[in-house]
């Protein structure tokens, strides 16, 4: 095992896959010589050259459409969109083209495309640089959506995503860019399958399903609760679509309580979907399921307000305590 940072795990995944398969190319704003706004593509241009590492103009609709065209004709493009909010500028090539072409064309093509982007809040980036849009993409048949929360999952999921023959949206967390964690040593081909959740902490009193950087908040909340004798099971879905409901249902069957935490809005979000699925499965619950999410408002720039906006360990713990109170 080796310690590495979240963004360095991304660089390693890109490097390993570009070395393994010459059809993999990287394109996006400033991914080339500059090495990226977070140093996330540093060194790739020097190794793989201008042909395979392409700086693009600030034209998300155009270069994502180009990536789809390239994916139809023999390449396996990886596209960077620096901030998740900017994906709204290329919804057409993602939603109308990449997601549907295989279906509309009778299975003639796959679209092996991985788009990664940095989203979420916690860095006072304001309403146009802090969004979490996982549910938007998960709502589209034909797209896959992954949301890794640790360096090792970044490495394994991005590598698997690049090898997938479908369009994969990889939602990374800006707040976690500099976070460190253990990853398998260089030379290990570390793959994490899409659609497989990870139990980050075992527990028997409540299931905390936490996505993206909320995994860290959930783990902190679990520590707080443990001091009070409450054992929370923290599950990281890692992949939003496909979603590993099997792992979630098995956990809720044991705990009888479910709390879903994400930094995307609650309305029509991951929590709504998971809670509906648990209800449909007829899992007996000891308390009504709960969601901990931001309010239905844009993410403010204001540091004091953004601190209130994002689910905190204290707020999660408070919600869980209420679930355990006798009715």
């Amino acid at each position, binding site marked *: 095992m080796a310690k590495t940072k979240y963004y360095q795990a991304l660089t390693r995944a890109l490097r390993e896959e570009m070395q393994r398969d010459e059809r993999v190319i990287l394109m996006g704003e400033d991914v080339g010589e500059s090495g990226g706004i977070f140093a996330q593509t540093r060194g790739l241009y020097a190794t793989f050259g201008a042909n395979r590492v392409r700086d693009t103009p600030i034209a998300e609709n155009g270069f994502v459409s*180009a990536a789809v*065209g390239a994916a139809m*004709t023999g390449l396996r493009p990886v596209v960077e969109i620096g901030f998740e909010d900017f994906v709204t500028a290329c919804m057409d090539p993602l939603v109308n083209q990449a997601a549907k072409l*295989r279906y*509309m064309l009778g*299975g*003639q093509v796959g679209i092996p495309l991985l788009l990664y982007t940095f989203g979420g809040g916690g860095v006072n980036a304001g309403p146009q640089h802090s969004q979490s849009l996982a549910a938007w993409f998960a709502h589209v048949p034909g797209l896959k959506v992954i949301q890794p929360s640790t360096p090792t999952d970044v490495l394994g999921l991005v590598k698997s995503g690049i090898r997938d023959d479908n369009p994969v949206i990889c939602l990374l967390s800006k707040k976690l860019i500099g976070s460190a964690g253990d990853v398998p040593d260089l030379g290990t081909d570390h793959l994490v399958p899409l659609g497989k959740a990870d139990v980050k902490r075992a527990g028997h009193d409540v299931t905390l399903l936490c996505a993206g950087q909320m995994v860290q908040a959930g783990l902190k909340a679990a520590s707080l609760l443990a001091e009070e004798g409450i054992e929370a099971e923290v599950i990281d879905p890692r992949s939003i679509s496909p979603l590993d409901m099997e792992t979630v249902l098995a956990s809720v069957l044991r705990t009888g309580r479910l709390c879903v935490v994400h930094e995307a809005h609650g309305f029509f979000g991951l929590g709504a979907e998971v809670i509906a699925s648990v209800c449909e499965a007829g899992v007996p619950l000891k308390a009504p399921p709960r969601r901990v999410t931001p309010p239905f408002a844009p993410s403010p720039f204001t540091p004091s307000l953004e601190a209130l906006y994002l689910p905190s360990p204290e707020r999660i713990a408070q919600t869980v305590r209420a679930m355990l109170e006798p009715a």
Partner: protein
Amino acid sequence: MKSRAFNVSVPGAQGAGISADVARRLFRTMCEIRRFEEVASERYKLGELPGFIHLSLGQEACAAGACATLERGDYITSTHRGHGHCLAKGADPARMMAELFAKAQGYGKGRGGSMHIADVAAGVLGANGIVGQSMGLGIGAALSLQVQGRNNVVIAFFGEGASGAGIAHEAMNMAAIWKLPIIFFCEANAFAELSPFGTHVSVPDVAQRAAAYGFPGITVDGEDVFAVYATVRQAVERARRGGGPALVEAKTFRWHGHYEGDPQNYKSDADHAKAQTFDPISLARQQAADVPGLKAHELDDIESKARGRIDAAAAWAAGLQSPPASALTEDVYAEA
């Protein structure tokens, strides 16, 4: 007609050096497109084709002339008005008809319909329902060719309506920066959806826009298949040599409405009259006299065979079965 961009004359069949073989091929393709669109229109009126369709009657010279310059390994990307492009690049009219009839044997297993006909093996990357995306997808295919070091090119078809979309600018800018092997082919058919050219385009010719990207732009008579062919051929040869993109605009005319059933009340009497006179097939018959070795009676034979091929395709497609219910959820994802 003089082309500033390529510094050559495009005077018609003889001066353009059109051989009898090429002339026959161009004529045959135009006749097949004409018949395909006529049959589609008839079948649509009879209620046999679900959904809605956009026809390219009057625009046959564009698809035929442009695609005749290509090899099988070259690609095209097309638009919602794409039947002609697909036929001209080598798609099978029977499987195309099957798609219009929503049958399992169609190119999209009957699930895509008129706007999503593709034959990837033949280099047809698809008609497309989103205006302008042919240009983005097209530069992506050209990027593939460049990265893979293949000596092929792409033609991205679009209309003057798409020329106003952001992606048109984004794609042409990127194609120029990366010197991609692509020809942007604008079929300026006088109307974008239900409004005339001037509602959509700020300059007289879309080809003028090429100046903004630093590559050649040329406007050609879209009624003249030989002129279209000769012009695109130069652009294709240039792109194949590594010379980068070009923009070719063909001034053509859409006989029918935006979609079949369009009442076309936005068209003037003069517009309706033009649909009776603007005819690339008639013009080609006249010009054929200038092509050495081409006999007038050959054209009748070519036309009759073309009609027969399309009529047989439609008859076959009409008799097929609908896709099974299992097709509803097939091909959403590729096996990982």
